[in-house]
């Protein structure tokens, strides 16, 4: 009976404003909600980074208006060192959780995963709706930390105990702010769990006739793999945050060792272990990095294959590499802890799987580059960002050669080299994936084309700008510049301040450029020319429906799939160089030349 128990779409068309736009069960609306949330979060996070950058370049500069946001943190608009750390914590938390996890995975995944597998919706629309609203609640809880008396926590997004666990004596924001932070993450985990359940069961159980696993577009696999990581990684973070909250509010001491002294007072906790927090946190933390980047890899592959007009040299190699990354992500988390007091033998054990990450990453990059060879590359904003992604991914990836080795980590740990590394490879690269996906799918999501000219200007300024920001980070770290410093007073850091000033200027410039993107989004949403169903001549199922799709996706006519999504560069009777997945047409041969 199980084989034929086909799930049907479970909701009718929305009837009221609330059910259409707010508490919608429609995966597309939920995808857009996630996207909007990510947009709000990314603007917040970016403004925070501006403030931090200004402070790093000119630490005594008054920032107009900042004293209004926090009279204690920025008296007269001049940021205090502790406020710098608080902004830094919030910047990182917002960016990692509410942008890099939310946009490429939850936003695009929700919108396009059911469409690409040919389903009318996900199997659990109510879970899906709850998933968004829990994530949204988590965001509100996190942002609320700005408005409690002590402000947000200053312990960084890794919240290393005992700084994050001993309460408000440890520093500003370490009381209520830290509890709110932990609660926000705990709630976020629930949202991700619900999302992951839906994604996995959509891929396994909701594929339309003919959409065998082998014919799934690469994006579906990327989201599927990400869900598998999300299912287990967030499940470990959640109890960790609960234990952290218990340390705060219930007087337990899971993460607080005995005999600590703060302000000449013995801390009334004993027996816990700071290393325990680090193990639990990074067990989640490393898969989280791939949760941020793997969907981007999928999107970029998808965009590239459409714009290269030829199949990837080997889609299988890309898929296996993504699986390998997911597999390795559980075995390498200790490379964050090489000098943090972990057993030095464990450091070596963690180092080799970490170095092995090079292999799948290089395979993916080489397949991308090798597939460019002999292609008929179309340059548009989406493909520009996808190509930019490759460049960023390489730049961020090679610094991993250094950081994977414990001996070199002695010099580079906790320096700006690390900051440069992860901003390049999981920050900017993932952002480029998001941009690429946005320019690629915007016509489908809204029914309007985006403005290509503004888009290209956006790309050029962003591409050059981000290199100007993040390459110098590596030089700073190489010279030993320690991260998480609110100002540079040490003798050996002072000569580096001009570099920081250069980065600040570049960051403000690049950030301002993003206004172009937001303008483009809003303008094109309302004034953009109407989008055809298949503007990029793609093959996957999202292009087989009107733009934007109706509430039930395929209008009650389920597509039947005959091919994989790689039918580019083929000869057809109609003269087109591609065959859509739902077209029964057979290729007359490949258009391959010498």
């Amino acid at each position, binding site marked *: 009976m199980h084989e034929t128990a086909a799930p049907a779409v479970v909701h009718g068309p929305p009837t009221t404003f609330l059910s259409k736009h707010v508490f919608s069960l429609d995966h597309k609306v939920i995808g857009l909600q996630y996207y909007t949330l990510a947009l709000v979060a990314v603007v917040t996070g970016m403004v925070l980074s501006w403030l931090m950058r200004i402070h790093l370049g000119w630490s005594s500069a008054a920032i107009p208006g900042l004293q209004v946001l926090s009279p204690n943190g920025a008296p007269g608009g001049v940021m205090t060192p502790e406020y710098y750390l608080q902004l830094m914590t919030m910047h990182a938390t917002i960016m990692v959780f509410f942008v890099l996890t939310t946009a490429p995975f939850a936003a695009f995944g929700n919108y396009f995963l059911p469409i690409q597998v040919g389903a009318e919706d996900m199997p659990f629309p109510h879970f899906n709706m709850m998933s968004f609203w829990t994530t949204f609640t988590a965001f509100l809880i996190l942002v609320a930390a700005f408005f409690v008396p002590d402000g947000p926590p200053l312990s960084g997004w890794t919240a290393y105990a005992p700084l994050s666990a001993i309460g408000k004596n440890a520093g500003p924001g370490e009381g209520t702010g830290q509890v709110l932070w932990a609660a926000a993450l705990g709630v976020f985990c629930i949202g991700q769990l619900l999302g992951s359940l839906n994604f996995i069961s959509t891929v396994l159980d909701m594929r339309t006739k003919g959409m065998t696993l082998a014919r799934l577009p690469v994006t579906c696999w990327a989201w599927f793999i990400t869900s598998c990581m999300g299912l287990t990684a967030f499940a470990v973070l959640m109890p960790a945050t609960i234990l952290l909250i218990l340390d705060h509010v219930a007087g337990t001491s899971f993460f607080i060792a005995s005999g600590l002294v703060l302000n000449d007072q013995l801390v009334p906790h004993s027996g816990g272990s700071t290393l325990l927090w680090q193990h639990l946190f990074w067990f989640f933390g490393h898969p989280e990095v791939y949760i941020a980047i793997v969907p981007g890899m999928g999107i970029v592959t998808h965009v590239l294959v459409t714009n290269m*007009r*030829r199949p990837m040299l080997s889609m299988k190699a890309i898929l296996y590499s993504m699986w390998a990354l997911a597999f390795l992500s559980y075995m390498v988390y200790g490379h964050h802890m090489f000098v943090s007091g972990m057993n030095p033998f464990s450091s070596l054990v963690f180092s080799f799987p970490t170095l092995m990450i090079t292999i799948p990453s290089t395979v993916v990059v*080489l397949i991308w580059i090798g597939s460019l060879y002999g292609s008929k590359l179309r340059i548009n904003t989406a493909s520009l960002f996808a190509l930019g992604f490759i460049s960023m991914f390489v730049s961020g990836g090679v610094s991993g050669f250094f950081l994977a080795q414990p001996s070199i980590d002695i010099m580079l740990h906790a320096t700006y080299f690390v900051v440069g590394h992860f901003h390049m490879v999981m920050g900017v690269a993932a952002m480029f994936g998001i941009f690429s996906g946005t320019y690629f799918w915007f016509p489908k999501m809204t029914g309007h084309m985006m403005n290509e000219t503004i888009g290209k200007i956006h790309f050029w300024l962003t591409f050059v700008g981000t290199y100007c920001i993040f390459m110098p980070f590596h030089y700073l770290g190489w010279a030993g510049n320690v991260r998480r410093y609110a100002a540079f007073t040490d003798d050996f850091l002072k000569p580096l301040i001009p570099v920081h000033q250069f980065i600040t200027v570049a960051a403000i410039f690049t950030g301002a450029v993003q206004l172009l993107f937001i303008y483009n989004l809003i303008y094109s949403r309302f004034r953009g020319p109407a989008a055809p169903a298949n503007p990029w001549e793609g093959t996957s199922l999202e292009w087989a429906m009107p733009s934007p799709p109706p509430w039930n996706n395929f209008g009650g006519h389920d597509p039947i799939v005959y091919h994989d999504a790689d039918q580019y560069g083929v000869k057809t009777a109609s003269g087109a160089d591609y065959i859509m997945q739902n077209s029964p047409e057979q290729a007359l041969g490949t258009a391959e030349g010498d």
Partner: protein
Amino acid sequence: MGKLLAVTIIIIAIASAVPFVMHTWEPPADVSTHGGLIDEQMADTMIEAGVSFLAAQILLGLFIWQFSKPRTDSKVKTFPGGAKGLVIAAIVLVGVEVLALGAFGSKAWAAVYFTPPAADAMPVQVQAGQFAFYFRYPGPDGKFGPLHPEMINEGNQNLFGLDPEHDVESRDDVVTAEMAIPVNKEVHLLMHAKDVSHSFYVPALRIHQDFVPGLDLSLHFTATKVGTYEIVCSQLCGLGHYNMRAYLKVLSQQDFDEWMKKEQAAQ
């Protein structure tokens, strides 16, 4: 526009590499006995990373240049060797090379962590607290007195929580705010955290180790050059983190003895 992207990528890649090739920004010169291996490892990795970086970026640029030209013929070509060649290249050229690098690098790591300190190494205890380092020398008896956290009091300068009245070993302990060590003598550094996690990072000495509250770690090293070096905290420890540092003075044996005498007198 494809050509422009190709040129931009190649220019950015080369420009990014220039400061590394020109040694514009360098870590401070190594003054330790074990640091040579680390420096060597860093240099080797830099060569490998640099070559991979430039090769990938330039190849990417070249292919974009070549294949973004609008073409009228409908032919597409396949990369010679196909996917198999590329996968093998990825595994052999990059993967195995990097793994080999890691294997050699283990030696540098072992030199720091898997070798016991010499029997005559000079013990120094360092205590990290918000937001200062304090150092303790065992004094003539060569023994550290036990710590009593509940007795720590910054007002009366009992920074370590010593109890000289009851503990004989504590009476001759020397507590200082800066660290002095004799040159070319191995130091056995005993690390103790007072409150939260901190880190002991001396770039010039090629040592970097976090303090773990509740777990007293140790390091050992030998400085080879007289001079003053900065000890900085690199583990986020609170609002004064950016300002948490101490100075490490590497002195000749004679200067060190004098310094020690002065410090003992000041206790």
